[in-house]
């Protein structure tokens, strides 16, 4: 086989010659992306001009800012002393002094550790939901967290949230008992009805009884003392956590062949989407009291959360419906042909794909929901943007301050919303399996 003389074999590749300067690196990039055509040149120049103009006006004002001062007038004095008569600058000292109020509202300051702990635990709870590299067992904590977070924030007897959680156990037991006796449909009804009855009539008295037996309680904090970002987070994150499942159910209801389920879902979605959120919030704060039995003290934050959840759920339902509509019929047929029942087909085949398609829309809805939490100011709650800022400006020290609090609150909202948007892109990429 071996040839008499070895043929020439190249052992090392020749180094490529450097491309001409116009074809390499920054110059090439700029030519292709910034100056590829006359129109592009004009747009580049205008764009850079606009950015330079904005930055040159805003940046110096921000950089001249003062962090150490006791009042707005002190801020101004310091700046004028430093930069001369008539020069203005930001007064960040306000944020330095008042940030606890922006974060906690009028939450008792000796109890700040509770919302902080609740926040940290929330991060722990959502981590396994967001990143599936984490152990799946952590999801149990995510399921328990709502009750734990509630207890930390509002305090009171530990038995109230425990009994609220027990409602799910009641539903599970009810379904298990009814299933063999009356079939799946009645079992699902029992699974919904039993917990509702439990929460309405049994949970309260049982919790009270247990509390008198084994008293474990944290100092209670009333909803009116909530404010600032803990309010925004509480409403925003609860809203997000509950509106997604409700939205999915509504989307399925809207697709359903069952007449009543279908019409109720359509009616609900169209009604909620047709009404401004503020209307719903007013309804929550004023009208709901007329409908509820007198004497029921239905927490204002809870009422607002319910309205926010309903509002976002209607939007999510429509987004998810779009995802469902994008799935080819063949997916349903293949699931049917393999013998998967409706719920399994939805859970294993249809929803994973429909939700994946809907991620951008769902996250947009979440971002909208989170920003809309500032609207609770209209029902007298102290949202960070206007509620707290007005409270701060009402003090003589900070009267007349204008931009700084908005920039601060805006920046925090931006960080959170931008993270959500980035996460959604990460998720889309991760779930990309079609490789087309």
């Amino acid at each position: 086989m071996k040839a008499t003389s070895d043929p020439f074999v190249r052992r090392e590749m020749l180094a490529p010659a450097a491309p001409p300067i116009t074809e390499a690196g920054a110059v090439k990039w700029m030519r292709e992306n910034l100056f590829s055509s006359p129109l592009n040149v004009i747009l580049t120049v205008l764009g850079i001009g606009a950015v330079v103009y904005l930055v040159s006006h805003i940046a110096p004002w921000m950089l001249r800012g003062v962090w150490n001062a006791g009042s707005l007038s002190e801020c101004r004095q310091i700046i004028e002393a430093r930069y001369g008569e008539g020069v203005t600058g930001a007064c960040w000292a306000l944020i330095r002094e008042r940030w606890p109020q922006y974060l906690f509202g009028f939450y008792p300051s000796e109890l700040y550790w509770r919302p902080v702990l609740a926040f940290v635990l929330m991060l722990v709870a959502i981590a396994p939901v967001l990143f599936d590299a984490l152990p799946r067992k952590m999801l149990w904590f995510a399921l328990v967290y709502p009750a734990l977070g509630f207890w930390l924030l509002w305090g009171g007897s530990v038995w109230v949230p425990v009994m609220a959680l027990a409602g799910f156990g009641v539903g599970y037991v009810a379904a298990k008992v009814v299933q063999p006796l009356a079939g799946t449909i009645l079992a699902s009804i029992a699974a919904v009805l039993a917990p509702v009855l439990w929460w309405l009539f049994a949970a309260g008295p049982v919790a009270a009884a247990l509390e008198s037996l084994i008293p474990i309680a944290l100092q209670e904090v009333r909803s009116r003392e909530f404010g600032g970002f803990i309010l925004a987070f509480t409403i925003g994150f609860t809203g997000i956590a509950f509106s997604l499942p409700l939205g999915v159910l509504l989307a399925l209801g809207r697709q359903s062949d069952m007449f009543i389920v279908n019409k109720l879902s359509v009616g609900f979605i169209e009604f909620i989407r047709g009404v401004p959120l503020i209307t719903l919030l007013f309804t929550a704060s004023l009208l709901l009291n007329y409908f509820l039995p007198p004497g029921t003290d239905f927490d204002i934050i809870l009422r607002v959360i319910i309205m926010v959840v309903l509002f976002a759920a209607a939007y999510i339902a429509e987004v998810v419906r779009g995802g469902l509509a994008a799935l080819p019929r063949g997916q349903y047929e293949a699931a049917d042909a393999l013998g998967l029942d409706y719920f399994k087909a939805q859970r294993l085949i249809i929803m994973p794909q429909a939700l994946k398609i809907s991620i951008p829309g769902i996250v947009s809805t979440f971002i909208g929901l989170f920003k809309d939490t500032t609207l609770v100011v209209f029902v007298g709650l102290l949202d960070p943007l206007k509620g707290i800022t007005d409270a701060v400006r009402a003090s003589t020290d900070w009267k007349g301050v204008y931009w700084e609090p908005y920039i601060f609150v805006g920046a925090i909202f931006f960080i959170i919303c931008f993270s959500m948007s980035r996460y959604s892109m990460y998720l889309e990429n991760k779930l990309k399996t079609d490789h087309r």
Partner: protein
Amino acid sequence: MSEAIAREIARSHMQVSDEIAIQITQMNKWYGTFHVLRDINMTVNRGERIVICGPSGSGKSTLIRCINRLEEHQQGQIIVDGTELTSDLKNIDKVRSEVGMVFQHFNLFPHLTILENLTLAPIWVRKTPKKEADEVAMHYLGKVKIPEQAHKYPGQLSGGQQQRVAIARSLCMKPRIMLFDEPTSALDPEMIKEVLDTMIELAEEGMTMLCVTHEMGFAQAVANRVIFMDQGQIVEQNEPKEFFNNPQSDRTKLFLSQILGH
């Protein structure tokens, strides 16, 4: 030539039992007011391999989709493996878990890997332990000759490979009957053969098969019976040699002359 002889020999081994797998009597179906299937009568014995052909729109797909109740019939009776198809969900689930179906467009689940596609139904419908389901799945992937693709996603496979995965996915449920609805008509010519080979192998193992196809070579190689449909009716059925050499009705003759390109 020798291949044809080998086939002939294999065919003599393919047993058709007297046991009835599918019995359809006086079945009628409408889409709204449109009468798609008219007075269908048909008996399929266990181990029989039937090819259904006919012009486009003649109701072939509708007929085989009635057999696993992807479509509902309005009149008459369909009994599959002793279970009558009615609106009773239990019966439908029972039939579906015993009847495999392969679609023209594969209908693999794009968000799951090939292996997950194969094990999904065994795990969730048959309650097979995951480990066992994986083994069964790998066995069938080996049979359709693509075990090395197990951890890819459907979008990364060629059409022919996807269709073989779809066949393996059905087989993982250990079905007693397999339905094929034009399994090769979405494929490029060079991929058709690999799918047909898989189907022929299946036939040689004695699977009861109903196959809508225009692959007349396949019909001649493995079918016990060819059924010709037109306008929702079964016009003619016969053993393949007779069917192709000696068609009875004019409609069959016309169809055959078109499809065989005379």
